[in-house]
Structure formats: structure tokens, C-alpha cells
């Protein structure tokens, strides 16, 4: 506001009285007052309205002050203070202060007394009548302090058992390998005879018998893949051909057709018989594994594990955990295809993980 008129002079007056006008505004206001003497008079009456300062004293000010924490509690919760007194939670000084503060108040003294009466005394006439029955004779043997030692010893034993007995591949696959290796040797020998009979020019190319055998075995592998189960096929891939001793050819005793027939019929019949038997009868190891799974581990839904030693180790761990209350674990870790990848062994003292390849 830069201009003062009769409509806004009140605001100017208030600002003037509060000392909020600038020097230029004060000049404007003085000029306005000269032109309006009635308003100048009005402003003077305002200036006289200042309230004189008076001194007031609250006489009980001292009573509002807190001399101690106890005083505060005395006013706020006397019951709490009495209970604290009864419980022995007050310091000696606080006790004396409390006693002094209620000295002249009969009601408060009575309240404190009542709280003190709530303190119960044990009734020693109440006794347990059958104490003799509770008493024991004999010795207390603490097995628990030996548990860690037992668990450690058992862990080491399991560790050793795992190292020596758990095969990297299953026993069955090993059997397959052996069986197929023997069969392949037979095939290789017979096929060599065949080659020597039917293709004498090969010999003329100065190839060693070993090289020829490699070729023959390779051919045979391809043929078998189409006829027998994938499990056997996988095993064949892992076979290294055995060295074949040269056999003297006897043209008169063997004919090409006879040899081929012999290889195909005899070998495949052998496989079929072996696996048919295996499907019909369980060997001892499989039976043990099955029994451990069903009876000890009580896990029928779990994938049947053909590794006997792994199951025995699991059973041992289970037993040790039961006896000692320890937390040893022996578990297989499976990949996304559900195939066992690793064996994890974990105890308080030692933990390891070993890869397995189970087909």
C-alpha cells in the first residue's frame, strides 16, 4: 500500500503503532494526518491505550517443583509406590521419604499397611508326603558328553565307507561294461576272421590287425545301438576296444554267412537272456537296497536307489542321528533331469560333496 485514504487508514494506523511502517510510509501517513485532523485525533487515542505492566505472583509455585522422582510418584500413583515399598524396590532414602510424607495422612498409611499385608508367608506345614518315592539309587551316566565323540568316529567311518565302497557309476553299469567287453572281444575275433576270409585285399593294404579290429568294433557298435536298450548302448560308448590277438585263418572251417549268423544270434541272445533274468530276479545288492529303503528309511515313494552302499551309509547316518541326537546328513543332489549328480555329506565337523555319474 502506497496511498493512504479514509478507507484503508486503519491498517496504516495498526502498522504505525506496531512500528512496521517504513520511513517513506511514515511520511505519507503524516501527510495524510495533516489533511485529516479528526483521524489524527483518533490515532492519539490509540496511543493512550497501552496496558500498564503488572506483576503477578503464583504463590504456590514452590509446590509445583519436584524435589525427587518419589514425590512425582507419590502424587501420580500412590498404589504403585506402596507396592514398590512392599516389594522392597525402593531405596532406603525413598522409603524414609515415603514414610515421612504419609505420616500425617491416616488414609495413606492404612493403604500402605494393607499392601504390606498382601505379602504371603510360606505355610511350612504343607509338606510333600511321598519324598522317599522320589529318591533314587544307582548311578547317573551321562552319555551326552560322549555323543560328539561317537558322532565324530561314526562320521569318519562313514567317510571311509563312502570312499571305498560307493562306486562312481552304479554296479550294474560296471557289470555291463565287463560283459560287453568280453562280448566285444569275441565279436572282434570273429569279425577279423570274416574280414580276412572275404576281403583279402585289406590285408594287402598292410593294415595292422589292431587297426582292422577298431574299424570292426566301430561298425558293430552302430549295429547294436539299433537293437538293444539305450542303457546297454551307453555302456558300449564307454568301451575301449580290447587288443585282439591275431588268429590263424582257417578257410575250411568258417564261412562268411556262418560267422555273421553266429555273431548276431549268439551275442544278442546272450544279452536278452541276461537282462530277462535280471528283470525277473533281484540280486542280493538290489534286494538289500530295496529293504533299506522300505524298512529303515521308510520312504517308499522315494526313487529306488540301486546303490547298495549308498543306502547302507544312509541307514547308518539315520541310526547315528537317532542315537546321538546329532545332525549328520548324507544326501544325493539331483539335476534338472532328475538324475543324481552329487553326494553331499555334512556333519558338525566335516562336510564334503562328491560328484557321481549314475545312468
Amino acid at each position, binding site marked *: 500500500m502506497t496511498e493512504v485514504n479514509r478507507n484503508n487508514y486503519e491498517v496504516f494506523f495498526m502498522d504505525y503503532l506496531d512500528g512496521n511502517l517504513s520511513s517513506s510510509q511514515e511520511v505519507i501517513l503524516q501527510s495524510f494526518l495533516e489533511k485529516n485532523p479528526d483521524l489524527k485525533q483518533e490515532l492519539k487515542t490509540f496511543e493512550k491505550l497501552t496496558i500498564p505492566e503488572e506483576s503477578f505472583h503464583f504463590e504456590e509455585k514452590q509446590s509445583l517443583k519436584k524435589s525427587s522422582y518419589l514425590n512425582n510418584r507419590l502424587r501420580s500413583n500412590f498404589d504403585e509406590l506402596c507396592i514398590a515399598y512392599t516389594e522392597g524396590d525402593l531405596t532406603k532414602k525413598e522409603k524414609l521419604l515415603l514414610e515421612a510424607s504419609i505420616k500425617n495422612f491416616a488414609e495413606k498409611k492404612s493403604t500402605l499397611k494393607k499392601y504390606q*499385608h498382601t505379602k504371603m508367608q*510360606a505355610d511350612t506345614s504343607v509338606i510333600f508326603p511321598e519324598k522317599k518315592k522320589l529318591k533314587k539309587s544307582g548311578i*547317573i551316566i551321562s552319555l551326552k558328553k560322549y555323543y560328539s565323540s561317537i558322532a565324530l568316529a561314526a562320521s569318519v567311518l562313514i567317510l571311509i565307507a563312502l570312499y571305498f565302497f560307493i562306486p562312481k557309476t552304479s554296479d550294474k553299469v560296471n557289470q555291463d561294461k565287463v560283459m560287453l567287453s568280453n562280448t566285444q572281444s569275441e565279436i572282434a575275433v570273429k569279425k577279423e576272421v570274416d574280414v580276412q576270409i572275404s576281403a583279402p585285399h585289406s590285408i594287402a593294404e598292410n593294415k595292422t590287425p589292431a587297426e582292422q579290429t577298431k574299424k570292426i568294433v566301430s561298425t558293430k557298435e552302430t549295429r547294436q545301438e539299433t537293437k538293444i536298450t539305450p542303457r546297454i548302448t551307453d555302456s558300449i560308448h564307454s568301451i575301449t576296444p580290447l587288443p585282439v590277438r591275431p588268429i590263424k585263418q582257417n578257410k575250411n572251417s568258417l564261412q562268411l554267412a556262418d560267422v555273421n549268423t553266429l555273431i548276431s544270434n549268439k551275442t544278442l541272445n546272450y544279452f536278452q537272456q541276461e537282462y530277462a533274468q535280471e528283470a525277473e530276479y533281484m540280486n542280493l545288492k538290489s534286494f538289500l537296497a530295496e529293504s533299506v529303503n522300505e524298512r529303515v528309511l521308510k520312504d517308499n515313494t522315494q526313487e529306488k536307489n540301486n546303490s547298495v552302499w549308498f543306502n547302507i551309509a544312509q541307514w547308518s547316518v539315520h541310526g547315528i542321528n537317532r542315537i546321538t541326537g546329532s545332525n549328520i546328513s548324507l544326501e544325493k543332489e539331483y539335476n534338472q533331469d532328475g538324475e543324481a549328480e552329487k553326494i553331499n555329506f555334512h556333519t558338525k565337523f566335516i562336510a564334503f560333496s562328491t560328484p557321481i555319474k549314475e545312468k
Partner: protein
Amino acid sequence: MTVEQYNKSVDLYADAVYRFIVKNINHPDEAKDIVQDTFEKLWIKASDVSFEKVKSYLFSTAYHTMIDKIRKNKRISSVDEYGSLDPLHDNQYSDLSEVLNEAIKKIPDIQRSVILLRDYEGYSYQEIAEITGLNESQVKVYIYRGRMALKKYIGSMEVLI
């Protein structure tokens, strides 16, 4: 703990534990069972419990056994169930301890337990907290409320004695 120490514990604490339980549940036969269970548990754990800690172990075990029994018998009660603690004035009491024994039966279980542990055995708030599984503040609050209730009961009865 040795067998001798175990048997000494029977001599020293069986009465106190029994008293604590019988005052809590007001049923002597059940209290005997609880004391026997408690000492059986101690016997099983004897090798793990030291003689110095046996009193605390016994009270804690007895307390929790009692709570389990109360729960099984569905006798657990909340504060609300007790309603008014106003005494029945037609009862005749000869002294204050009788009044107090009557009053202690009428307050909630948890308040009664902590007050008995405090008054009978002189346990600290911390020790009571360990025995009952509460925290120290809760123990203080239950003692406070229990004392208030007892005082109210006594206050009314003192006039009649």
C-alpha cells in the same frame, strides 16, 4: 549332578515345589503328580542339570507341567472370568492369613503364580521371568495387579476381622 545331589534336591526342594503347586491349583493329589513328574524329569536330565541350578529347574519344570495340566483340564482362566474380587462377607475368618489364603485363590493363575514365587521363595523379578517364561516387565505388572487385587480383598475384610 550325582545321585546324592539328586536325593539331596528331593530333601531340600520337594516340599517347596509341592507347596507352590498345591497353592496354585488347590488340589493336593494333582499337585503330588506334578511333583513326581517334575522329579522324574529331573532324574532323566540329571546329568545335564547342575546342583546349583536345580531349584530353578524344579520350579520351572513344575510350573510348566502345571500349566500343561491346567490347559488339558481346560481350567485355565482369564482375568475376566474372575470378575469381581469382592469378598463374601458371610465367611468367617479368624486372622489375616486366612483372608489372604482365600484371596489368593481368587486372583488369576498367572498373578497367583508370580506372587507365590515372589513371597514364598523370594525370587527376583528376573528369576521369576526365567521360571515362568515371561519377561521382567510382565512379571512386575502381574505382581502389581495381583497385589492390587489382594489389597482390595483384604481392605474389605479387615473391617470384619
